[in-house]
């Protein structure tokens, strides 16, 4: 019923259909976050064109601190993206401080100092420097950098402001219903393969009716982004570089002086609907904010769900639509791995060079990977929770420090 404005109009889709398929593409990528962008770029590297749909037409509102581990950086380098990503890095010369405090207004009982990317690149303690050191970035900056690369790539047809609303499986592909919000028109896109990279509240996953298995009882959390001049009242005033503070059961992070803070705070068991972020930060962290200091609030649970299936027919789930580790994890490694793995395997399939088992291996291997990463994350979070419980029980500083020394430092 809509006469499209698209580039590759075609006929088909059956006489009964009211909507004419508008586009046909080998791969339709739903969602242009880190996963979706990388997937499209990986496909393009293998000369496979794709259409990428992104509901948002603006970047995310607020930054959050994310670690891109060395392995991910290597994968990004393959795509020629390492430089662009490195340019977004937060203070590459500054080491990351992880301060463990009983309370925000007390001196930390223990500090982990993670070497800065620059230090790592120089190599330390006689070891060879890694090929790519890890980086600390703002998740929003990372996504923006990748989106820039996607927009500029001739093989990728990026459609921002387009929303995927439904899927229909076909014998040799998937037909997606999409809505172009600006024009207010609905279209169909026929794709041989479709990848749902549309995040935690994934529409694709819902269309596929794929359930999510959680790791345990989920506790509600609030992520609060806020401005505060002298946070925390730690000794020495505001942080000099990228800092993460773990105080009681909460986590605070900031990229450096003058930056906004991001706090992750568990809600009480019965507070299903939080209405007072200022009060929450006051009660849990002793922070005195005024309401306008609060820039944004996200409610989430730490159920750490993993989709029961990463694939249905020719449709795949990748990134946070397949595993909800964000924001507890603060890393993008699992997502980057998904995108690159799915990318080259799909490319091989599109080129007709793939054994059916190759595509099957994506779902098996990446789901396995997600489960392993989840296990690591559960342990890391358990360290934080135990620290919070010990601190709440009034354990003395040396006991707390001893406890943390026994934990591997990567378990943040």
């Amino acid at each position, binding site marked *: 019923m809509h006469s499209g404005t698209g580039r590759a109009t075609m006929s088909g889709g059956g006489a009964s259909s009211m909507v004419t398929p508008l586009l046909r593409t080998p791969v339709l990528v739903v969602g242009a976050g880190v996963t979706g962008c990388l997937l499209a770029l990986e496909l393009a590297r293998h000369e496979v064109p794709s259409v990428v749909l992104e509901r948002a037409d603006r970047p995310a509102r607020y930054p959050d601190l994310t670690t891109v581990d060395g392995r991910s950086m290597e994968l990004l380098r393959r795509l020629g993206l390492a430089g662009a990503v490195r340019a977004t890095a937060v203070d590459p010369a500054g080491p990351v401080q992880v301060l463990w405090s009983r309370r925000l207004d007390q001196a930390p009982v223990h500090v982990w100092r993670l070497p800065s990317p620059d230090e790592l690149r120089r190599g330390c303690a006689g070891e060879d420097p890694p090929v790519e050191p890890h980086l600390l970035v703002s998740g929003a900056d990372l996504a923006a950098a990748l989106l820039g690369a996607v927009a500029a790539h001739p093989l990728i047809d990026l459609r921002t402001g387009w929303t995927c609303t*439904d899927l229909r499986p076909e014998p040799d592909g998937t037909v997606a219903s999409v809505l172009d919000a600006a024009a207010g028109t609905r279209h169909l896109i026929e794709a041989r393969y479709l990848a749902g990279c549309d995040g935690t509240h994934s529409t694709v996953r*819902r269309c596929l009716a794929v359930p999510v298995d959680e790791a345990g009882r989920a506790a509600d959390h609030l992520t609060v982004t806020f401005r505060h001049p002298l946070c925390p009242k730690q000794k020495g005033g505001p942080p000099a570089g990228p800092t993460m503070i773990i105080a009681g059961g909460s986590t605070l992070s900031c990229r450096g002086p003058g930056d906004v803070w991001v706090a992750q705070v568990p809600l009480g068991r019965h507070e299903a609907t939080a209405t007072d972020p200022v009060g929450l930060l006051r009660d849990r962290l002793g922070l005195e904010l005024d309401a306008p200091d609060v820039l944004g*609030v996200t409610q989430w649970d730490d159920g750490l769900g993993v989709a029961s299936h990463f694939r249905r027919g020719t449709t795949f789930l990748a990134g946070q639509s397949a595993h909800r580790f964000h924001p507890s994890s603060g890393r993008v490694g699992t997502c980057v791995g998904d995108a690159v793995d799915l990318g080259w395997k799909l490319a091989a399939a599109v080129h007709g060079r793939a054994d059916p088992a190759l595509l099957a291996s994506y779902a098996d291997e990446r789901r396995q990977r997600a489960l392993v990463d989840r296990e690591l994350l559960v342990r890391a979070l358990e360290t934080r929770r135990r620290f919070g419980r010990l601190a709440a029980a009034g354990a003395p500083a040396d006991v707390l420090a001893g406890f943390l020394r026994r934990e591997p430092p990567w378990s943040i």
Partner: protein
Amino acid sequence: VLFRSHRLVQGRGARMTEHIFGRDRELVMIRRALEDTAAGAGGCRVLTGPGGIGKTRLLRAAGDLADELGIAVAAREAFKHDLAAPLVTLAGALRNCSPPTGEFRWLSRPDRHDDPFLLLEQLRASLETFASRRPLLIVIDDAHWMDELSALAFRELVPALESFPVRWIFAARADQSGAEATGRDTLRWLARRGTEPLRLDVLGDGAVAELCAEAIGSEVDNTVLALAGGCGGNPLRIEQLLTALHRTGQLVVSDGTATVVGSELPSSFVDTVRDILDSLSAGTRLLLQAGSVPARPFGLEAAARLMRRDPAELFPAIDEATAAGLLVDETDGLAFAHDLVRQAVYNGLRRSVREQLHRDAALIARDEHRPAREVAEHLLRSGRSGTAEAIATLRDAAAEVAAVAPATAADLIMHALQASGEHDPQRATLTAEAVGLLAAASRVADARRLGEEALRSGLTPENEAALLLGLAEACKHAGQNPASIGYADRGLALDGLSDGVRASLHAIRAHALVYVDDLAAADASGAEADRLGRSGREFGAAVFGGTARMLVAQARGRLGVAYEHAAAATELADRTGGAARHRHPRIWLGSALTSLDRFDEAGRTLRAGREESERLGANWAQPLWHYYTAALLAARGRLDEAAAEADAGVTTAEQSTAYQLAVPLLGTLIRLAVLRGDLETAQSSLARMRRLIATGITAAPEDVLWSEATLIAATGAPDEAVALVAGLYDTMPARPALLAADPAAAGPLVTLALAAGDRERAGLAARAARELAARNPGSCSAAAAAIHAEGLLTADPVRLRAAAEKFRSTPRPLALATALEDAAAAGRDRADPAVVRGWYDESLAIVTACGARQAQGRLERRFGPARAGPPAGRTCLPQLSPAERNVALLVADGLTNVEVAGRLFLSRHTVDSHLRKIFSKLDINRRVELARVVADECPGNRLTT
């Protein structure tokens, strides 16, 4: 409008929904309950669940359903400020009764009682009258905010109105929070005694989809459902999310299907509300921000004052806010669609703006004559400058409600304490006030913690004494006697106290000492309290000291002296009035008269005392009246009535959380149940008593151990029973308290020890009885009991026969029956069989008439069934006791419980207790059914006494 309607009202293109999704099970349960009520049954249900889950909407549906079924509806949505306004929760519901009725109009009258007891009585009478004409649904939403007096009323009325077609539904948040402790305790209490609370769970996927479609007014696709799936199945969050998406242009409806598009999807409730706010015009935003401050429905005038605008200018803003689904216009003003929405708006206010709004809100609340606590709340939130004024306001507020709602008053003072600085000169006084109020509210642990803290900080002797007195009273009321004595001693050790204060300390100390069995010290302190109280014109202390001395004398077995102390205390209280009268010495005078066999006077005294305490609103005294009335009725051999009294006493003690008084009453219930051959009730009462004792409550051994021993003996283990009360036997010559309260207990005590083969303890009991008789030459019962005990020891039928003859001249039929039975047993092989048979027949006739089924069974086993006596007049409903039958006939006649109580000179709690028994015996649960049974079985419908 019965309820604040929680409607999803959207602007163009969307519509409001009143439908309920995913609650089929709950709706069926509610419908069934209401149909029962339409047919005459009562009942209570508590509905819980997190905020926004849909409780209110379900209640609203219940209201509509009730309306359809011809049930009147009285509903209120409680809110935070209810806490400070005694009875507002329940009175508010009843005043809004639909269809309107004049029955509850008196609640609005300025001259209504402010005494809680009288208020409750009148409330109950009104409800009974109303419900006997038309079934009634009472709905309290957000019941965790209920005020303290309403809480007390619910505890009394919910059980009391069980036999009426009154259906209660309470809804409350499931989360925990400190301020609403009273409400939560009451809800838990209601849930415990009724059916399981109905927990509203999160909505399932199907219900979420239906809700979304209904809210948007079109089909919804997976983008909507995927996002709504992140709202935890909470309908409020889903609806607000959809509203926000719609208003920010991120929800597109095309081709009849809604799709989420857009770039800035709100990811929390807070952001959702903020997005909606930002989508409104500046004036509307200001209206909502100002309106969030009063935390109650607000009027146009108040909003205009807060906004410093002309009221007429507000209409466009009101329209816009209503269209956006954030505000609703209801009978008592403008209100937020949900309090969580209000909170989100409020919490988003800049501090300086918020403080200014609170300053204005305080002035407005004052002008609108809101409760002082509400004013103080605003002052406290208006910045530093408001604190001093807030503290003064809180103190006024506490004084205002202290008599009616001590827990509320205590909270107010605690609030003031928190607000006052560390070095505030008022702190000492505030603390002393708080301790006294906490004690009055039975929050003894809190009182002690606070008091100890203050004592450590150093006080003037006067303040310290006042504080120590408060603590001593608190501990005494909680049954923590040693602690009470400790505080009193510390107070008395202070120098320079007035006679009045010393008298008060001595009076408390004396009562506490009675319970730790230091009778000499108790008597000395009682005498000091009496003397100093008279000289220092602290007559309440003098009266209370006198009653302690009465207890000492009674424990020592000096019945005449006990009477003299009680009589003197009563005379002083009557003469001086005021605080002295509030000590209710007639409680103990009634007991002393009972000991002296002066039953008619005892009955009159107890009734007059009870009426006086009801007039004065002394809730604390209610369990005591029931206790001593039960003792009197038991002595008179009216066991069923005695049990109903004791049962009612336990109920009143639990309702007013005076658990320390529930213990002796449960002891009474155990002994009565044993006598009535109802071991099941005895066991369950024992279990309840043990639970209370496990919380640290202490009570006299005569009430606790003796009751338990009676039960153990009845189960055929006399050795165990004697072992349990060995101490009681051993101290009995020095402390014959058990015999003084009930001289006829001597016989059973000796019999029990003999059955256990413990002749020595049997001898001790006999000696105690002998000495009691010697000390009280005027007491016929004591003399008879001494002979009875001696006769048992020597197995002498002649003596036992003599004891029986002596008991015959007392008003204690069961004592006579026991002596006759013992005489018959002892004389079985030695006396003329015909004579023995005569004793037996008489004993059996007495115990049968008294409802002493344990003895009846024992006699029949020993001597065979009764010979055909004179044909008993055929009574209807033979399964009921005479007292129960009278209640049943009056209720069947259409009298309400309050009217029955008046007619039979019983307390209304006793009538409730009888009626519960009647319903259980007849296996019915409605008054209409009772009326039918009576009509069928008692055509004449005559009272039997």
